[in-house]
């Protein structure tokens, strides 16, 4: 980002101030986008906890995967303190660490543990965090993600999203024994749970704003039908099963409505909103072209969507009130689809096509609408923002197999999520 920018050199003056400071003023206009060096010292764990879980390793993996941190290898550590008072700051500084995390796991009772940890700034020796988190053995993983979240936020000022979840569709086996699964996993891809499985296709999972429910499309009745399922209870209800197409559900920010794509009798696709309480349906677009893949703005007053009304698919925005006219947002390239809004609405992520390959791109919504292509795979689709906006999750292909991948919102860091067996498609990142 800073590469093409010229250094602005403003030379200050030496001034004799009333405080008797002889000041040499130096102006700094650039910084590095480097990863921040941090040491996560292995936690002192009792055997029953250590056997099941390595807290420091998970924290270290989370921070590394974010691309914002480089963690020190354990082999390079010359000491392993577990409390702040035992940290030899000079040594850790000499080993080029800016920060250090130390901690321990304490047994509190039968299947009850306390994770106690501290974060220090090695450079000025300040204690930045000191917390304890209580968890049972099964909860140690989530608690460790929370440790990573706190460290991430304290240092970067951005809320961590390690303790969140992702939903995706997994396709196992081959016809005629193909199975589709709707899966919810931890944000690092671990700990997958099957929410729904079917012999017929499952598509388009979408998180409710409270993170309690998923809306998705199922073909289990041979025709596409939209369901809403509560994760905790497994209870689900059919919300749209009209003749023709029912697809691409998206929750309104208040969780009371779904935007979705329905077809008229002649097969024309348009965008509607569905009130989940009254089942009232409101038509938003009315165009002979295909209008689909709606996404709400944060204020719930407009929708971003894909339309081919101008020939190829492009991204538009329309207000939800009667008479509102759509406005086209993308003009670069012949194919721009599947808009997803960043949580702070500063960016729009979408799929763009270049030379027959599909990439994830972002458009700046605050400035001049600059487009940045973030990925360069052959089939990178279905972008979904992490709730902190730092990372975009998407579906990609690796040696002919569908996998999940991550790219930081600035395109600087790319990661591949550990993929389970089978094809993985249509990821959706949960809210906080």
């Amino acid at each position, binding site marked *: 980002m800073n590469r093409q920018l010229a250094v602005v050199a403003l030379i200050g003056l030496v001034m004799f101030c009333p405080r008797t400071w002889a000041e040499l003023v130096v102006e700094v206009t650039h910084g590095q986008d480097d990863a921040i060096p941090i040491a996560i010292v292995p936690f002192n764990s009792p055997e029953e906890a250590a056997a099941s879980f390595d807290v420091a390793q998970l924290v270290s993996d989370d921070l590394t995967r974010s691309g914002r941190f480089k963690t020190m290898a354990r082999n390079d550590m010359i000491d392993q303190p577990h409390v702040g008072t035992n940290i030899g700051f000079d040594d850790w500084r000499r080993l080029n660490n800016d920060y250090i995390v130390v901690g321990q796991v304490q047994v509190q009772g039968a299947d009850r543990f306390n994770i106690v940890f501290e974060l220090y700034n090695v*450079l000025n020796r300040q204690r930045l965090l000191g917390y304890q988190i209580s968890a049972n053995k099964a909860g140690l993983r989530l608690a460790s993600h929370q440790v990573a979240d706190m460290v991430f936020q304290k240092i970067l*000022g*951005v809320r961590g999203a390690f303790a969140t979840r992702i939903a995706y569709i997994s396709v196992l086996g081959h016809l005629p024994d193909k199975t589709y699964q709707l899966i919810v996993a931890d944000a690092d891809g671990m700990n997958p749970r099957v929410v729904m499985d079917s012999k017929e296709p499952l598509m388009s999972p979408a998180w409710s704003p409270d993170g309690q429910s998923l809306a998705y499309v199922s073909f289990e009745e041979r025709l596409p039908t939209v369901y809403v399922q509560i994760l905790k209870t497994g209870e689900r209800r059919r919300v749209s099963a009209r003749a023709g197409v029912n697809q691409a559900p998206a929750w309104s920010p208040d969780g009371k409505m779904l935007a979705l794509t329905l077809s008229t009798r002649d097969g024309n696709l348009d965008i509607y909103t569905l009130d989940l309480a009254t089942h009232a349906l409101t038509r938003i677009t009315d165009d002979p072209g295909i209008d689909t893949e709606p996404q709400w703005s944060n204020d719930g007053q407009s929708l971003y969507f894909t339309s081919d009304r101008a020939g190829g698919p492009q991204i538009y925005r329309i207000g939800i009130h009667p008479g509102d006219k759509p406005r086209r947002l993308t003009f670069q390239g012949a194919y721009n689809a599947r808009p997803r809004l960043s949580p702070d609405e500063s960016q729009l992520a979408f799929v763009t096509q270049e030379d027959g390959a599909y990439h994830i791109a972002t458009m700046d919504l605050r400035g001049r609408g600059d487009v940045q292509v973030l990925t360069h795979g052959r089939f990178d689709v279905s972008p979904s923002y992490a709730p902190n906006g730092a990372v975009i999750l998407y579906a990609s292909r690796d040696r002919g197999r569908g996998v999940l991948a991550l790219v930081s919102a600035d395109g600087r860091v790319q990661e591949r999520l550990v993929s389970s067996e089978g094809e993985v498609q249509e990821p959706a990142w949960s809210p906080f």
Partner: protein
Amino acid sequence: MPGFLRENSWPLAASVVLHGLLAAALLLTAFISSNQHLPTLQPLPIDAVVVDSKVLRAAQRAQAERAEQEVARARAAAEAKAAADVEERAAEEAKVAAAKQSEAQAQAEAQAQAEAQTNAARQAKAANQVKTAETANAIEDARRAAAARKILEAKQAIAEAKQAAEARQAAEARQAADAKQAAEAKQAADAKRAADERAKQEREAELRRQLANEEHVSAVESGPLRDRYITLLRNRIQHAWIKPPSATAGIDCVVEVTQVPGGEVTDARVTQCNGDAAVRQSIENAVYRASPLPDPPDPALFERNLVLRFRPNE
């Protein structure tokens, strides 16, 4: 009485002339020293407290010693006065009578006093040398700013000392008939004047050196070397700054940095900043990460205190 005056006309006349000369010399000295304050000197910022306090302590010590001497002398004078007749005229008579003491005795005593004065002068000189040595250290440590202030303070001390001497001399003039005392006072004044003169010359030389140094510094500070130093510092710190995501265009933060010779950063504090805690921390860390800071192209450019302004332009 007229008979007495006639009889003692020679010693009396000598005594009057001597005191007249003494008073004139003292006035002249005071006048010169009061004109010695250089109008161009202004208090410069001081960052070496240690040196200042040393100088201050030395000045205070010298002043206290002089005050003690004065008290002692005043006491002696008072005693002498009490011993003599309270009336001024009677005192004068006593003084004149004292002047009649044999010349040989007076000379012997004068010689003894002279030796004592020589010793005193030697001690004063030694004290001055110590002071000079301290001053030399002060130059190295605190550079011209501290030295300039020290000179000012020393001059004040001299002025005060001279005022005290004047007062003392006035008191002594009142019992001027005591030839022994007069001779002693004269010798003391001579020795003191000589010592003061030497000290003054040394200080002036010092001042000239400092002024020359300042000229050099101001020549360097406004020149391209200074720009180069700023560039060196900026490059080093930019390289060390890992920007958090919130460090976007529009961020404007000032960090005050203290470094020691050699460039090691001993303190870094963000003072004004419109960024969040992460931005503040990243900036302080950048300064520590850049430690040791680069040496200036000319040692005269070294500043203990730096102000860095972080304004990402992207």
